[in-house]
């Protein structure tokens, strides 16, 4: 009922929208725009972009080269107080010795209707713009538009001039507020060739390409015309983040440009866009990659020799080499596919980004005589690799790939809490590129084996049968173990907190096992009391007490994007409830068995003389489920929660 209503409403509104007069000329704002009370089609929008128009041009500069001049003008309608934040503008620009960009010609105006009639325009005073330094390379130019309130229309423009042709400014058609009209125009010159990549949409709503016949331009002896490209999208809905996705960047509608080649005045081509095999070749010669590996090589022969004598097998040696890096060098929290420090500096600082650490590991493993390669990948928050676009900047991480007979090992030395041959969960993102000379080889990064989490519970009642004494042992493997190790961090306070959060009282005998033995299961055990539900002669006990999930993690009704759990999971609960003397089992929950390609659940109870054993086991078999499997997944969670929180009933006999 509701959906039909909103559908008709949308249609009505879009009809209304067509009658609206939205000007796309800078400086022209109509009363209709200011009177507009809601965004047609999205009445919850706090603000909306009425137009967003950008243009990049190549202008001759005094260095006999080109600057890329990016001009942008934007008009935004503010609907509510919550939308006021869209009147605070931040423009990022690059400034260091290599690339010195400038932002100029800033103009901004706020339009209001006073008393519902008279249109007023309040201009931004340029002295109210500020430069905020982000780091040694990047700045923000920030300003807030004046006199903005719910109902205002704001308009601003600026020019950004950059000497760098490498990254032509990208264009995001979609934002967290709806966009009515978005156009990016690039005036290409024949000296630079770009490829572009449109994400989140199949095609542009409008694409125009024509030669600018009017204006003849000269570069040295050459006469040329600009080639105009116009990319246009209209009525782009607001982007909604849904949780359990890799990265917002993977789904937003946007256009990326890559320099693929440039030409000198004689037409000689220098290729920038290469092929994957060529790219592998190039980076192996790179100072911050291939040469870094070389400079690390041969520096640790004594350590390798020593570890060799301590290792019985090849695998053990590889593990020891990984542990050596983990123990002696710490990760500075930054992801990178290339080294920022020289190997010498890295050795001095004892800390490095992910590339410095893992390339070091690679050289050690190679020096020890193994066949090993770097694997380039993009972490989950960095977005997916575009396989049709051989650009190295899509990557932000490297791990080590070792061939061990028929077996393949993937190594990473940034996370001391992981077993040596398991890469961090953040790296599980599609495929990685194995960097071999003149080759293109992709490798699956996912770990197919489900990570297990077992809870063993032993429940006894106290003498007065009004409280439970529970003994709990939690055994975790794989990523489940990693996550728990990381959460507790071998810190007794965090451990206490972890148990207290499950509402136990009188907690005792807290133990952990194998915190450092990362190839073994990580085990946590403790004893604690819980109140029991008792009515007259009956005792109601949830056999899995507070160790179960109670909350359905999938809370939305519907879903647009895939659901990505990172890795498959296997959970097992087993509980033994001692039946106190004078009591008998009155009720046991029914057994259950579900098993299909996506999910399995078994639930069994067995009753002995003075005890009941309940075992439940469930598995989400896939790491990633498609959006159309969402309802099914949500249903399985609902069933699970009901079953895992079911109770047994004990009654007093007399």
């Amino acid at each position: 009922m509701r959906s039909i209503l909103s559908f008709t409403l949308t249609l009505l509104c879009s009809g209304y929208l067509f009658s609206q007069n939205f000007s796309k000329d800078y400086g022209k704002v109509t009363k209709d725009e200011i009177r507009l009370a809601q965004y047609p089609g999205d009445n919850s929008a706090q603000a909306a972009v009425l137009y967003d128009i950008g243009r990049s041009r190549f202008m001759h500069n005094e260095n006999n080269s080109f600057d890329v001049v990016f001009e942008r003008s934007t008009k935004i309608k503010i609907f509510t107080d919550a939308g006021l934040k869209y009147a605070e503008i931040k423009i990022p620009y690059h400034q260091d010795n290599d690339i010195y960009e400038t932002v100029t010609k800033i103009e901004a105006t706020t339009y209001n209707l006073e008393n519902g009639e008279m249109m007023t325009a309040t201009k931004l005073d340029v002295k109210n713009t500020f430069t905020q330094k982000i780091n040694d390379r990047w700045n923000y130019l920030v300003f807030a538009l004046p006199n903005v309130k719910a109902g205002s229309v704001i308009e601003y423009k600026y020019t950004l001039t950059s000497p760098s042709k490498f990254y032509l400014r990208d264009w995001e058609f979609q934002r967290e507020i709806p966009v009515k009209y978005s156009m990016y125009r690039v005036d290409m010159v024949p000296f630079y060739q770009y490829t572009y990549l449109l994400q989140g949409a199949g095609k542009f709503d409008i694409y125009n390409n024509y030669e600018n016949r009017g204006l003849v331009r000269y570069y040295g002896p050459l006469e040329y015309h600009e080639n105009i490209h116009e990319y246009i999208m209209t009525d782009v809905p607001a982007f909604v983040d849904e949780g359990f996705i890799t990265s917002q960047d993977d789904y937003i509608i946007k256009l990326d440009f890559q320099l693929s080649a440039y030409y000198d005045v004689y037409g000689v081509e220098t290729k920038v866009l290469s092929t994957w095999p060529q790219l592998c070749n190039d980076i192996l010669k790179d100072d911050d990659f291939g040469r870094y590996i070389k400079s690390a090589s041969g520096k640790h022969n004594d350590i390798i020799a020593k570890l060799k004598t301590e290792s019985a097998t090849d695998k053990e040696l590889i593990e020891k080499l990984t542990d050596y890096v983990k123990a002696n060098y710490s990760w500075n929290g930054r992801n990178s596919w290339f080294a920022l420090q020289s190997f010498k500096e890295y050795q001095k600082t004892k800390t490095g980004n992910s590339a410095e650490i893992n390339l070091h590991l690679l050289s050690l493993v190679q020096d020890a005589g193994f066949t090993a390669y770097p694997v380039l990948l993009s972490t989950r928050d960095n977005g997916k690799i575009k396989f049709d676009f051989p650009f190295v900047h899509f990557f932000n991480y490297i791990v080590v790939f070792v061939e061990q007979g028929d077996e393949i090992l993937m190594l990473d030395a940034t996370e001391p809490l992981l077993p040596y041959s398991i890469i961090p969960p953040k790296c599980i993102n599609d495929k990685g590129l194995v960097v071999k000379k003149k080759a293109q080889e992709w490798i699956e990064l996912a770990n197919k084996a489900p990570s297990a989490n077992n809870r063993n519970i032993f429940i006894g009642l106290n003498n007065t049968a009004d409280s439970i004494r529970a003994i709990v042992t939690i055994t975790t493997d794989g990523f489940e173990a990693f996550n728990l190790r990381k959460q507790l961090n071998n810190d007794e306070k965090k451990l206490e907190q972890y148990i207290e959060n499950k509402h136990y009282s009188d907690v005792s005998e807290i133990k952990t096992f194998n915190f450092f033995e990362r190839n073994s299961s990580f085990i946590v055990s403790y004893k604690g009391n819980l109140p029991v539900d008792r009515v007259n002669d009956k005792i109601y006990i949830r056999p899995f007490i507070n160790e179960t999930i109670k909350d359905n993690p999938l809370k939305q009704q519907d879903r647009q994007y895939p659901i990505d759990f990172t890795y498959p999971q296997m959970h097992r609960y087993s509980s033994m409830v001692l039946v106190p003397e004078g009591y008998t089992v009155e009720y046991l929950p029914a057994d259950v068995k579900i098993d299909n390609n996506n999910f399995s659940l078994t639930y069994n109870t067995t009753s002995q003389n003075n005890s009941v054993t309940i075992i439940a086991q469930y598995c989400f078999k896939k790491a990633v489920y498609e959006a159309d499997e969402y309802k099914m997944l949500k249903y399985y969670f609902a069933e699970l929660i009901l079953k895992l929180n079911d109770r047994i009933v004990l009654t007093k006999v007399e």
Partner: protein
Amino acid sequence: MLVLVCSAHVDLHGREHDAVVDLLSKNISISGGKLIEKNLIEITINNRRGETHTWFYINYSKKEKIKNINAWIECPNGQVVRKLSAKEITTSSAVSDFSLYEDDFIKYFTLRHNTYPYKIHFEYTRETSDFIHIADWTPIYNIKIPTQQAELTVDLPEDFEVQIFEQFVEKPAATNTSERVMYSWNSGYKSLIEYELYAPHLSTLIPKVTIVPKNFRYGIPGSFESWQTFGEWQTKLLSGLHDLPPHEKMQINAILKNTSSQTETVELIYKYLQKNTRYINVSIGIGGLKPYPASYVSQNKYGDCKALTNYMVALLAYAGIKGYYTIVQADDEIEPLIRDFPSMQANHVICFIPLENDTLWLECTKKSVPANYLGTFTQGRYAFVVDGAGSKFVQTPALTEPEVRNISVYTYHLSTLSACTVEIQKCLRGSGYELFLELSKEFNKQKQEEYIRENISSADFELLSWEIGQSNTRLPEINLNIDMKISGVLQKFNSEYIVKPLPLPLPKFETLAKRKLDLVFNYPVSMADTLRYISSNNLSFSIVPGPVSIETKYGSYKTIVTETGNLLEISRSLVIHAGHYPVEEYKAFYAFIQDIRDAENKNVIVLK
């Protein structure tokens, strides 16, 4: 109580600290109007976890110069492993998340080694000529790690008068020479303070020394000799800032055409301010203390708390009403003002209006609260009213129990066939009102729904509809209505069903053994819930919970149970009185909380 049995790698029992500050030293000297502050930190990193303490930060403003940054790593034998190089230091703007721009900066770096323990030695010098604080010192470098030794020395010209506040420190050793006076304090931080719920403000628990100049020049000359002199200085800083442009005055004339009372006038002007301006913080130079003039707010229609309050005071003055620029230390937790130590002890500005029959307080940075609602941010504490020689302290009104009472009604339609439909009606006040007001005004519908979905229930449920609304925006309360379906409410066991009523959301108070600090409730806690169960399918209530009444010095808990036909109603209320309760009373307080938990745990409804 806590025993950890671990692998051979480490013994967790009685374990060493991850990091320890061996020496924290600050050396301040003033000569020729220039303040030079030399800082030295020596910190030992004992293990990999301690590496979180290997990041070092220097915050500074544009008026300060940072010099002589030196840092190095030392092995236990004293050998220097390596030195920090200048290019390892990053400098960036330090703009807090509530600001558009501030001219503050931060320098930071990290230094690490791979064999433990190792010691990092870090020193730097700060220089400034513009200051109203000389020292704000505590031996605590980081609340989570101990400081073995901390020292502060202050070296002043003999005729340079200062005022000193000391807390939990020994009297300083003072040496006088012919021209200089030198003070030195020594302290440490050995038993760590841990976070506890409803604890006194941290500033009241730690050793500290604060030193301010008696006379200073910050924009204009001023004096901390007394609160009056400070008030006079702040008044001078505020003078000439009421420059309302003529069109603004015309607007005010139009609004106030038919007003009858002063209270109404204030409310109308406040509404005008709320409708037309927004909070944006731009802090430059002495802008930390001097507001932008009324003309700036009038033109831009934005400002920070100082600018907006000054503007409000200017508008009121134009309408013939005296309002006061009033400074206050704002936060939900109250940092008590040190009343015998005149100095700048505030982070916020509000507007105080004593009318003939009424006193009004205005928070000028909030667009949607009614006039005279200060809220948890500034309620119930001393504020300093700036009024020349008549500057004085006034206490802001404290939130009372009815003003923070959150009322909820849950109606469960019990069904044996499917999930239960539940209607929830909430009327929120106090912090709940503030939270949901912000949610409804600052966030879009998706974010609101997301918040409700994440926080409303811990069960498998389906949100059917929800609404946040206010029946009267002049009252500081907000309504939240939710319809949902929850599964598993009714559980079947052979021929009978049970329902476990939702417990009250009590804070997780520390157990007796863990509590070290006094309990402080800056305002009362008050909840009134009604759980209504409507049975169907020929089910009738067979066993229902009995009434409970607990009355203590700290508060009360009551439930009333009524059963009429197919309707069972459990009404319960919890009140915790505002107050400061010494830790010696925690046992009694905890027993009160435990009694409530026990009573709620016993609640089970059986239907047949």
